């Protein structure tokens, strides 16, 4: 977990991240300073980013963060209040949704209840007035793709949640879109099915080789599936990066809190590579802050190691203990009253005093957000 200094400098010198304005491969979608308001309420606030062809993107954030708004803007159901959206470098403001090379898998699947499985999948092809024989072939191909052969004449009402979702995917991909938009498609499924579908979707994206834009509020889902993640809050992009970037180097308190469990402490930067929190000074890998600048410090629970009290950089009194299968989840308080969460394969008893050790790389220093702190 060591990052080149230049990277550290860049990440600390920017407040709102504009997500990946340059892409390596072929650019497919670009938002330029896009704002969306509903009746005076800003749901998307001056957002800019670019997306590359053939990648799996996830828009991650709590409800009301603007992630679904981005999806609906791309699909064309709504128009931006300000700013421009480009598709293959051309503005698509005046292109209606039915003329866009984009298809959507809706949160409630939005399958047509008056049509059977075959006719649902065939809908887009029929609208294009394709020949009957071609429709048959393409629909059965799409159904084979999602493992639903033989279900052609089933009514939608007879399909289970997981099957409906596959029908929704088949109905979208049969039109061979360049971009597939997925609006929390897994949220209605139970945990086991959800995990299964995560693998299937990822696999599907690899096989099709098209761009997936996946919306979710589930951080585990986002980490498991994506090439790139946009973390959103209050209509702004908080951070853009690979799942590893975002997990290891959260840019602010909100992202650190939203992605995984973490210990977040207030502190101040004494000097480059030296930070103070929990009443002590620690060597770290961050620099580029003003002297004595107040900062937020994040340490992931799995980066903390149990040690004897005299060897610990921090000493805590264990308050509670939970067995989580792979590890113990230990919660305790240090002498200043800060709460510490530790994931360890070693056990500690409630009431026991233990030391915690961590590497300088485990300390993530973040600028404090001025106007809207966290959430």
């Amino acid at each position: 977990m060591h990052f080149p200094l230049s990277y550290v400098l860049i990440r600390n010198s920017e407040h709102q991240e504009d997500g990946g304005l340059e892409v390596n491969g072929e650019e497919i979608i670009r938002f330029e300073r896009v704002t969306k308001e509903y009746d005076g309420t800003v749901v998307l606030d001056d957002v800019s980013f670019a997306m590359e062809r053939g990648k799996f993107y996830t828009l991650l954030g709590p409800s009301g963060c603007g992630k679904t708004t981005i999806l609906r803007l791309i699909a064309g159901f709504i128009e931006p209040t300000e700013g421009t959206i480009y598709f293959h470098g051309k503005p698509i403001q005046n292109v209606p949704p039915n003329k866009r090379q984009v298809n959507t898998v809706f949160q409630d699947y939005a399958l047509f209840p008056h049509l059977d499985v075959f006719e649902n999948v065939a809908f887009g092809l029929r609208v294009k007035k394709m020949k009957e024989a071609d429709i048959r072939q393409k629909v059965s191909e799409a159904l084979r793709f999602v493992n639903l052969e033989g279900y052609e004449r089933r009514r939608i009402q007879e399909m289970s949640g997981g099957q409906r979702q596959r029908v929704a995917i088949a109905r979208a991909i049969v039109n061979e879109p360049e971009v597939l938009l997925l609006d929390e498609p897994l949220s209605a499924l139970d945990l086991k099915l959800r995990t299964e579908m995560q693998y299937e979707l990822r696999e599907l994206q690899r096989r099709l080789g098209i761009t997936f834009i996946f919306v979710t509020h589930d951080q585990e889902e986002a980490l498991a599936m994506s090439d790139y993640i946009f973390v959103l809050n209050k209509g702004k992009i908080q951070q853009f990066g690979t799942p590893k970037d975002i997990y290891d180097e959260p840019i602010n308190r909100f992202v650190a809190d939203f992605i995984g469990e973490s210990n977040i402490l207030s502190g101040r930067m004494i000097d480059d590579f030296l930070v103070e929190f929990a009443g002590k000074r620690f060597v770290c890998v961050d620099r580029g802050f003003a002297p004595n600048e107040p900062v937020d410090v994040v340490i992931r629970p799995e980066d903390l190691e149990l040690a004897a009290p005299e060897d610990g950089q921090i000493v805590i009194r264990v308050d509670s203990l939970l067995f989580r299968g792979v590890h113990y989840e230990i919660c305790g308080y240090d002498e200043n009253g800060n709460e510490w969460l530790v994931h360890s394969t070693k056990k500690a008893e409630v009431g026991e005093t233990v030391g915690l050790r961590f590497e300088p790389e485990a300390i993530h220093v973040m600028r404090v957000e001025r106007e809207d702190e966290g959430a």
Partner: protein
Amino acid sequence: MTERAWRNWYLIPYGIWLVLFVVAPIVFLVYESFLDLDGHWTVANYENVLTPIYLKMMAYSFWYAFLITLVSLLIGYPTAYWLTKTRHKQLWLLLLILPMWVNLLLKVYAFLGLLGTYGLANALLQTLGIGARQLLFTDFSFVFVSVYIFIPFMVLPIFNALEELPPSLVDAARDLGASAWTTFRRVVFPLTLGGVKAGCQAVFIPSLSLFMITRLVAGNRVITLGTAIEQHFLVTQNWGMGATIAVVLMIAMAVIVGLTGSGRKEGSR
């Protein structure tokens, strides 16, 4: 006594009502339809119904009911559609329902005034330079007033069906490449067919037996089964014949309801 038995007791008032005002009248009506003017048993009334005079009257009734339903649907569907899109739904719905609270006879009399020779409509036509003309006692005024009376019954079920339609289905159709018109034709209309059926039933069936509007607005221009029943009972005093027409009308209504289904079931679910 068990809870269930108690619950049955609550049915008694309605049961009495049903027997006194629904079952008994129908029984009397059927009984009466088999009696001639002198009170003797006969099937002559039914033979009479099948003569050209009554068949033509029946055809007229169906034709006018069909016209009224069609015009109501053509106006009612777009209205209901627009209502679901508007901001102040409750207000507009209230305005739509408001005339239903006014007595039917009052509304019809109001139209007599409006459409009369010296009424507002003719005054308007005159100022426009078209000139006054006979508006009352025409097919047009009959259908016009009937549509006015019945339109809420058409709009409400369609409005409800449209409200129940998930908006994501419209998005999905657009997303899959359908134009606004194709979306309407292939998704919105088929899924609101239940409401359309319910609305058509609610307009067509009462339209079949109209007589008050027929008498007051259409005068003697339009003779339907409704007016025939009224004539037989009140003018010619041939109760047997009146009852026969009523029985035939009821059978026709039952058949229509049977054929169109109970409306809601198929389309929306």
